[in-house]
């Protein structure tokens, strides 16, 4: 079974600064996918960024980028130029490959607060 660990229950950052959220995972699989989801107070789960394990290149989506270290089983999220709208709970998630209907496993979440 896979496990996903987010060791930072809460983080805060000043507007326009950069913040990094940590995530580690444990799996014996070689083919899998990793995701960061954002959940603002509206409760909607929003996909921020995704990474395929077989790709060495780190994924980037505008101000969001990841540092994927497969050997270390680490998948951190960097948010650049933080905005007030980035305030939310962030979840790291693992999805096994090899099937179209794998189960998504979530970390415990990190509450990020962006201060003006």
């Amino acid at each position, binding site marked *: 079974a896979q496990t996903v660990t987010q060791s930072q229950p809460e983080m805060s950052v000043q507007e326009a600064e950069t913040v990094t959220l940590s995530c580690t995972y444990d799996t014996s699989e070689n083919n899998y996918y990793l995701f960061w989801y954002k959940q603002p107070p509206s409760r*909607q789960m929003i*996909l921020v960024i*995704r990474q395929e394990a077989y790709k060495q290149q780190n994924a980037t989506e505008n101000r969001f980028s990841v540092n994927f270290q497969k050997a270390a089983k680490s998948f951190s999220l960097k948010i650049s130029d933080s905005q007030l709208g980035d305030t939310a709970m962030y979840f790291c998630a693992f*999805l096994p490959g090899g099937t*179209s209907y794998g189960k*998504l496993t*979530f*970390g415990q*979440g990190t509450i990020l607060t962006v201060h003006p």
Partner: protein
Amino acid sequence: SAVISQKPSRDICQRGTSLTIQCQVDSQVTMMFWYRQQPGQSLTLIATANQGSEATYESGFVIDKFPISRPNLTFSTLTVSNMSPEDSSIYLCSVNRGNNYGYTFGSGTRLTVV
């Protein structure tokens, strides 16, 4: 990508009663997933709903407490039965967009049991 409409968005219910949550997807999907998110916690998978067969429940969740219907490829319901205050949570439905794209989620139902 799939769009999911989830209803109700919130409800306050008396203990001992039941609440049915509905999710409608704008495209046909083979499987739908139901999650529970207790206050301040992460998401926990309740069950996987496959059209035409019984739902598959995760450890700690039983059909008598969380019956699920999946009458067609675009719709599913989750019922929270005989509710107690411990059932107060956010319930979310989800569909798999394909491994490369992760899951799409409904907007969630915030349930408070008094």
